[in-house]
Every structure is written in structure tokens, then in C-alpha cells.
């Protein structure tokens, strides 16, 4: 259950009562009326948690004033206090029927529905902030709901408007940081989560969250420092170990990364993710055989892991051991027919090994028929088809375009699907459309060199050449960065000691 705006149930109720009284007094001052005895009695009963009495009193009052929003609201509070959420909601609705802008009812209904994390709370909460733009609780709840539906732009705005409320709300702060990160405001996200960590230095999850964000901000050294207390404590849990591995690897300390991973595998030899992480490092350092050997160890421990077979198959492809790769992909498919990757991997294998793609695409299409909402599969189909440069007007061209559009409709952040569209539009001579897709790709992946290069090539054909020099500069910087990274990856080659099943590193420093 979210902690945003939470208060315990009683606390929430107390707050509502307070709000109710405030508003009531306000309206009385405005209209020169006085709070009548009946209402006072109901409020008093509520304050004393005499909910049954409060219900009785509201019932009596409603006979005389059946449309009174105050009475219905007080009645809702009483039901809420008794734990009868359904009746409470109904009562709030009655209050709002006669007075749609009645704030206590809006608040009450909003908070009640919010408890289910339901988007149905949004209209109530939005009405509240329209009437009271500084209502931080409502903003915080709206932020959380926006996060849930994936609208980080709205979420961040609301979280900022409800910032004071968030400070002590752990989940909300993490949601806020998550959205900031998704909007590429990583530094801000770090400071949000760091403040949480400062308040709770022993919160392991929060500490890991800080480290993840620091990695995203390409500050692996900072991530390592953040994780240090957890690593020094010993008995490192798997999540921390995996994160530390990533941080050390990003910090170009492959030996330490591998050591941490190795220790984690020893502690938890049936954890598939750890073997896959090793395969990832082996892949990056083009030490494919070492990756295969470690996956062999994993498969002895977890013989029915489709993921491990898939991973090993991919490494076999890199080694041009196509028969072994095919066997592994088949096995992965047999073990877990639902997972989408093996069909894709088989497709890739077929295309790389023999140049034939019909069978591989057929398999991919079959998978897509069963899993039509898998954005990754659509994106991969688009990439595979586009790679063969289909001619505009052909069925392959149309299929590629359809697949790319479907991919981004399901997941707008798939830069490769925009790349595919850009290439297809370029082939069709649609310069402006190609430019648009390049820009889309770069929005989600500013380091997409393919999109950047294609954008330059397309802008050459327009009268908007002013942008080109800056883009060329960006491309040159990205290329330099990639060259540096490659040089670092080539420093190390991974090998497996034949005498033991432990992992050894071979450092190969350049002269």
C-alpha cells in the first residue's frame, strides 16, 4: 500500500474532520450562520470515535435535510471510521451530487479511492488541486497515480508541487526519483534518493537505488562508494552483488567485478541471473569461450533454465559454433515456449549462419501472433527486415514499417524501432519523415549514433542545414567516447582456469 498521504486510517479521518470544521467555520463566517448543535454533536461523536452514534445523528439530520453535503460527508466519515468503505464512498458521492465542489467530500472520496491505487481517484484529486492549488497531499497522490500509469511528466510536476509531503514518504520519493530518471533528470533523481538515504543510512534498498542512479549518470565511482558499506559488511546479497559488479565493470575494474560475481555465484549457485551477468561481461570483453564455460557451470546447477541455454546459444553464435547454438535455442524453446527471445535468437542464428531469413522470420511471426503486445519482438522484427533493405512498395517493406510502428506504440522508448522507420523512410525518399524518426530515436537515446548520422545525411537534403555543424560535433564526441570505451573493454580478457571451476582474469594492459 502506498504511503503517500498516509497517515493511518485514524489520522486521515482526523485530518478530514479538521478540514471539515475549518471549512464549515469559514462558510459560517461568510454567511453569518452558526454551526448548529446537530452538526456539533456529530463532529464530537466522530472525534470520540463513536461512529455508530455519528451515523445515527446523520441519519436523523438527513431526514430533514436530505441533500446536505455536510451531513452526507459526516456520514461518510462515520462509515469510514467503521471500516465500511463501500458505504463511505456512497455517502461521499451523495455529498458531491448536491455540491460537486464540496472539498471535504472530494478529499474524502479521493483518499478513499486512492487507497486502492486506482486511477478513479484522479478526477477527485484534480478537482481538489484546482480549488486548492497548494494541497500538497493531493499533489503527492496525483503524482503517485501518474507514476503508475507511466506519465512521468505529470508525476514529476505533481511530486514537486507536493514536495513537502513527500519528504517522509519513502515509496513516493522513490517514485519521484524514478520518474526524474526516466525524464533524464538523473542528477535531480540522485539528490532525491540521496536525501532519503541520508535520513535512513541503513535502508539497503534506497542505497541500491542511489547506486543505480549514479550508474545511470555514468558515475560508477560514486556508485561504488555508495555500495561500499554493503560490500564491507560481508555476506553480500545477490542484488547488491549484481549492482556492484556492474559498477566495477563500468569503472573499468573488471577483475574486481568478476571477483564479486564469482563470490556471489559461490554463495548462490542456482541464481540464473548471476551466470547471465557473467556472460554479459564475457560478451563485452569478447571472451566468448569463458562465457560458455561459466554458463556450463550454471547449467549443471540449473539444468532446466531456458535463459541459460539462450545465453549460451548467443555466445556460441559469436564463436561461429552454429550447430551448438541451434541446439541451445531449441532447448530454450522446449523448456519455456512462452519466452519470446528464443524465437528471435533462432532467427538471428539463421540469418547470420546461412543468410536465409525466411524460416527465422516465420518463427518470429508465429511468436508475434501469440504475443502481439511484445514491443521487443516487434522491434526486432522491424530491425531484421530493415537490415535487408527491402524496396519501398514491397510486402517486406510494409511489414517492416508496420512492425516498427507497432513497437513504438507499445513502448515509445524503443529507439531502434525509430531507427528502423527512419531507414525505411529514407529508402522511400521521404526525407522529412526520416528526419522526424531520427529525432524521435534521439529523444529516447541521445547517444544513438545511427540516428544522429542519418539525421545529418537527411538534413543535407533540406534547407535546414544550420543544425548540421552541431550534430557533427555531437557525433564526433560520441565516437570518441565509444573508442575510449572499446579500448577499456579490450584491456581485459576473461579465461576460466581449467583446474578449478573458479573464474580467473587475465589482464592485458596495453603498452
Amino acid at each position, binding site marked *: 500500500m502506498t504511503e503517500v498521504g498516509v497517515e493511518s486510517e485514524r489520522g486521515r479521518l482526523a485530518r478530514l474532520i479538521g478540514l471539515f470544521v475549518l471549512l464549515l467555520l469559514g462558510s459560517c463566517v461568510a454567511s453569518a450562520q452558526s454551526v448548529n448543535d446537530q452538526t456539533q454533536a456529530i463532529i464530537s461523536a466522530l472525534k470520540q470515535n463513536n461512529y455508530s452514534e455519528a451515523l445515527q445523528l446523520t441519519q436523523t439530520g438527513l431526514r430533514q435535510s436530505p441533500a446536505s453535503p455536510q451531513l452526507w460527508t459526516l456520514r461518510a466519515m462515520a462509515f469510514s471510521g467503521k471500516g465500511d468503505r463501500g458505504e463511505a464512498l456512497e455517502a461521499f458521492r451523495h455529498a458531491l451530487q448536491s455540491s460537486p465542489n464540496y472539498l471535504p467530500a472530494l478529499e474524502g472520496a479521493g483518499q478513499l479511492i486512492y487507497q486502492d491505487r486506482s486511477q478513479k481517484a484522479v478526477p477527485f484529486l484534480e478537482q481538489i488541486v484546482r480549488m486548492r492549488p497548494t494541497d500538497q497531499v493531493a499533489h503527492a497522490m496525483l503524482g503517485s497515480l501518474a507514476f503508475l500509469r507511466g506519465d512521468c511528466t505529470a508525476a514529476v510536476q505533481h511530486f514537486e508541487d507536493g514536495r513537502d509531503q513527500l519528504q517522509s514518504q519513502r515509496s513516493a520519493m522513490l517514485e519521484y526519483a524514478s520518474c526524474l*530518471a526516466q525524464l533524464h533528470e538523473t542528477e535531480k533523481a540522485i539528490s532525491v534518493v540521496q536525501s532519503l538515504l541520508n535520513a535512513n543510512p541503513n535502508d539497503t534498498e534506497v542505497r541500491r537505488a542511489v547506486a*543505480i542512479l549514479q550508474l545511470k549518470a555514468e558515475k560508477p565511482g560514486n556508485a561504488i562508494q555508495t555500495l561500499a558499506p554493503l560490500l564491507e559488511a560481508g555476506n553480500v546479497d545477490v542484488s547488491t552483488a549484481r549492482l556492484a559488479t556492474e559498477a566495477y565493470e563500468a569503472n573499468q575494474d573488471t577483475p574486481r567485478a568478476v571477483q564479486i560475481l564469482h563470490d556471489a555465484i559461490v554463495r548462490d549457485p542456482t541464481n540464473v541471473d548471476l551466470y547471465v551477468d557473467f556472460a554479459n561481461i564475457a560478451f563485452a570483453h569478447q571472451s566468448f569461450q569463458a562465457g560458455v564455460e561459466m554458463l556450463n557451470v550454471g547449467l549443471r546447477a540449473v539444468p532446466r533454465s531456458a*535463459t541459460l541455454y539462450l545465453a549460451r546459444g548467443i555466445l556460441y553464435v559469436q564463436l*561461429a559454433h552454429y550447430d551448438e547454438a541451434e541446439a541451445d535455442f531449441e532447448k530454450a524453446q522446449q523448456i519455456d515456449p512462452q519466452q519470446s527471445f528464443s524465437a528471435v535468437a533462432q532467427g538471428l542464428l539463421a540469418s547470420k549462419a546461412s543468410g536465409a531469413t525466411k524460416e527465422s522470420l516465420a518463427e518470429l511471426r508465429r511468436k508475434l501472433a501469440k504475443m502481439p503486445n511484445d514491443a521487443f519482438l516487434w522491434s*526486432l522484427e522491424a530491425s531484421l527486415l530493415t537490415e535487408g533493405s527491402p524496396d519501398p512498395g514491397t510486402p517486406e517493406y510494409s511489414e517492416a514499417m508496420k512492425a516498427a510502428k507497432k513497437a513504438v506504440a507499445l513502448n515509445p522508448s524503443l529507439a531502434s524501432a525509430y531507427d528502423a522507420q527512419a531507414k525505411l523512410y529514407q529508402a522511400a525518399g521521404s526525407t522529412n519523415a526520416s528526419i522526424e524518426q531520427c529525432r524521435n530515436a534521439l529523444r529516447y537515446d541521445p547517444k544513438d549514433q545511427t540516428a544522429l548520422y542519418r539525421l545529418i*545525411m537527411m538534413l*543535407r537534403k533540406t534547407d535546414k542545414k544550420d543544425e548540421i555543424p552541431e550534430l*557533427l560535433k555531437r557525433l564526433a564526441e560520441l565516437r570518441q567516447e565509444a573508442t575510449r570505451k572499446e579500448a577499456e573493454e579490450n584491456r581485459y580478457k576473461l579465461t576460466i582456469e581449467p583446474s578449478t571451476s573458479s573464474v580467473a582474469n587475465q589482464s*592485458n594492459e596495453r603498452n
Partner: protein
Amino acid sequence: MVVSQIVTRRSFVLASLYACVNSLSGQAIASRNIKPQAAPPASGKPFNAKFVDVAQAAGLHAPTIYGGIDSKKYIVEANGCGCAFIDYDNDGWMDIFVLCGTRLGGDPPEATNRLYKNNRDGTFTDVTEKAGLRAAGWANGVCVADYNNDGYDDIFCTYFGQNRLYRNNRNGTFTDVTKEAGLLQTEMRWGAGCAFLDYNRDGHLDLFVSNYIRFDFEHAPVPGANSTCNWKGIPVNCGPRGLPTGRHLLYRNNGDGTFTDVTKEAGISAAVESYGMTVVAADFDEDGWTDILVACDSTPSLLFMNNHDGTFREEAVVRGVALSDDGMEQAGMGVGIGDYDLDGHLDLFKTHFSGDTPGFYHNDGKGYFDQVTQTAKIGFETRYTCWGTGICDLDNDGYPDIFVASGSVYPEVERSLPDFPYRTPKLLFRNLGNGTFESVGKLAGPAIPAPHSSRGCAFGDFDNDGDMDILVINMNEPPSLLRNDCDPKPHWIKVKLQGTKSNRSAIGARVVMHHGGKKQAQAVVSQSSYYSCDDSRLHFGLGGATSADIDVYWPSGARENYKAITVDRLVTLREGKGIVANNGWK
């Protein structure tokens, strides 16, 4: 869990599947491992050029020694060398100059560059010793031109080691004048491609030399040493990735037989460092000044545009010739230059590593290029590592075709992976006249599919029969001399230029041939293909046309036009004078 939502950590499977789509197949060499385009259906049209390898019969017996035969420990053994057609004695018949390497551990006695004199009867005589051209070493590229404007072509060879300039003494011999010309290098360099060009239009040929890697045996890693020394898991010679890049040089001809290094003042050293290979110097933007293209391996290729003031600006990326159409580096080795679509502009064809498509670039006439590999239907062929190449009309139908020499760099791989043989066939793509090509393979004769590990190739008419033959370097084998027996043979014309105000060789000139409503551009260059130099007589196939008009754009800036030239002959055009007698061609 919110924490995991903060960053989407792509799983290994996801990341590597994407990487598989774009992965390096040769870890040390850039290759996109791209899915080939679907091969177009055969047109069914006959191809009348037929190639027969007559090297043995012609007397070209000596193998091109180049490093280890069954395995290659260092990359210096793998890249091979170029060759040239050169009429060194001005008798009107193309002689042959074949470079050579050596072996680790010492120079075998047969390891030398070789000059073969054309006997005019289909055979050649080895005149290397007599000509003073015997030299052992790791020779790479050759460029041919008359650098001292005395009427005789000279030779410049690049080496891993000391480059050499051979001045033609006009009596059948050459003298090594490297030192007196100011071209002696004070440090060890790996000279790769070279080009003579008159970059400042003073009538004297300057010299551009690309460099590949800064390499020395003492510090070079060995096969398997690191990830740049493996290919598909097999230990192989390392590089070029992981090794320091070379630095390219521009020398200005002082007009007195000497050269001055003007690399820095010309702006060449400001370019991104790269693994330089073949150099082609031509006027790509048709502004009357020679530009310089450098094909680069696993790094972006370079295009130095002439600023007309003694300096250059490097613009390969924005002009579309630096990278693949996906913005990726490729292993650029050889460059063909020609006009495939007969629009009067110089297009380019660049060769690459196996697993990648060639780079076929259409010039818009202003020096901006678009990749047309896919639209030209050439993207289906990605099996082989390709080197020497040319855009040349081999069947004289008026549409330039594309020829490619191929060969692997890893002889040790085929033992474990027979799908990746060391010796591979040549490729010939015939121009269909509609912007597309088709592979003709053995339709063009038995010499085309014959497997070799080839490198440089040069195009020339060694038997003066009006069609283009091809000389091909084969690693540790004798060269191939592919005689073209084109039958029937449509009309043709050859153009030999002699500069007067321009440099004598007319290097840098552009010729546009108009015939039958078509026009075709060619350039006089001192190097193209892979480290090689073609016959300096520009050959134009004319199809059925019986006369042609010729536009000549001289390097001096002058422009001349010749109308209604009759065909099936060589015309020699002297700048400012017109048609003059041919040397030795009656």
C-alpha cells in the same frame, strides 16, 4: 518494485540480441556482420567479356611473397600489396609492376618487387634487376606518375618501413632518389596508400601518403593475446583495432626534384587519426581543385576537400563517405572511382571486410555522396573480404561495371571453420544500365570464380586490343593476369592526356565522354583500387556509338572540348595543342 523501475537494466539476452544484430564479426576489424540484401533475379542478358588467367603463359611466374602461408602472426603479413600498369619505356605498351612482401625472420631470395616489360606478344620479361628495382621489404602501395615532368613515369612505393621514390632514368632503368627528394623518413612508419596530385595547381605533382598503424614487432601483441587478436574465438593476428593509428603526410613538390613536408600547414594533421589505406586524389566537387579521399580501416574514412589556398578541410562524415549508411565504421580498404550512372560525376566504390556490404557512393556533382549499395542491388554479397576494385566498363557496352578482388586475412581460420575459406573468388557486377547491377560470376569466364587470397588489382589493356584486362595480386602465389577476350566487342575509345601547363601526367584531370546521348566521367589518378595504379589511358566503352565528344578538365583549370572523335582507337590529347601522335600505338 520501484527501484528496478528507475533504470531498465537491459538483460544480457536483450542487449546481446541487439548486439548480435550489429555485432563485430571480426573483433579487431570493423564489420557490421550485416544481413545481406536479397540477391536480384538474373537478367538473362549475355555478358560478352570473358576473362582468362594468362599469367603463367605471360611469364608472370614469381609468387608475391607475403608473410606466413598457413598462419600469420602479425597484421603486417596480412594486408598484402598492390600492383601497377605502367608504360615505363613509353613504347605504348603497358608494362607491369608487381609489389612484394617478405617473411618474418628474413627476406627469401625471391622476395622482391618486379618489373615486367611487355614483349607485345602476350608475354612479359622480368627486367627487375636491369631496371634497378630489386628491393625486398614489406611493400604496400604503389602510385605512378611523372613527378619531375620529364615525360617518363616514375614510381613511388610505400612500405612498412622506408617508402621509396624511383625516378625513371628514361633508359629503362630507375634510381632510388628517396633521400635526395627529401622523402626519407626519420622514424619507422607504415606507409599504406599514396597518391600523386597537384594540390596547389603549380604544375608539379605533390605526394600524399597515408599511414596505417604505428607498429613495431617488439611491442606488437601476438595471436590470442587479447580480444583484438581473436576472430570467432580463433587466435589470429591482432589489429588494427587496439593498435595506435598512423599519421598521414602531404609533401609539396618544390619543382626541383625535392619535396617538403607540408602536412601541418595544409591542415592534414588536424584530421581524426585513422588507419589509412588506399588514397584516391580527384576533383570530387568539380571546382577545379583536387581533393583527397583516404579509405580507412575500422575508422572513419577521410575526405580532404581542397580550400584552394594550400590547405584542406576534412569533411568525409558530412559528405557521406566516412561511415556506413547506419553511421558505423567499416573496414575500408580499396576504392574504385568511376561514373556508374553516366551523369558525368565521379562515384566511388569502397571495399570492406566479410560480413559487410561494400560502400557504393553516388556523387551529386558537388562532392556530396549518397549510399546506393542497396538501390544498386549490390548489398547481397557479404561473404568475402574484399580489396582491389574498379568501376570499369569491362564489356564495352558503355556502362561501367564493378570488379572486386577478394581474399581472407586469416589462413588459420578455415581449418576450424571451413565456411570461412582463405582463398575466395573474384566478383564481377555487370552494370544493367538502370542503376542496378547483377553478379555475373563464371559467366565472365573461369578466371572469375577461381579462388585466391587476392589483394590489389590494376586495370589496363596490356594487349592493346581495346578491352580492359585486369592484373591481380595473390598472396604467396603468382599474380593473375586476367586477359579480357570480349566478343563481340562494342566500340570503345581510349584517351591519353599530356599536360603542359598542368603536370605532364595530367594527374587530376577529369574527362567527360559524350556519346549516344550519354556522358561518362573518368579521372586520371595515380592510385585507386587497393594500393594499385591503373593504365593511365582512360578507357571508355561506347556500346554502339561510332563517334564521341570529349570534354577535358585539366588540372591547371583549363577546359577543352573535342568534337566527333572517331572510335576504336587511342587518342592522345596534349594540353593547349589538341590531338597529337600516340606513343607506339599505330
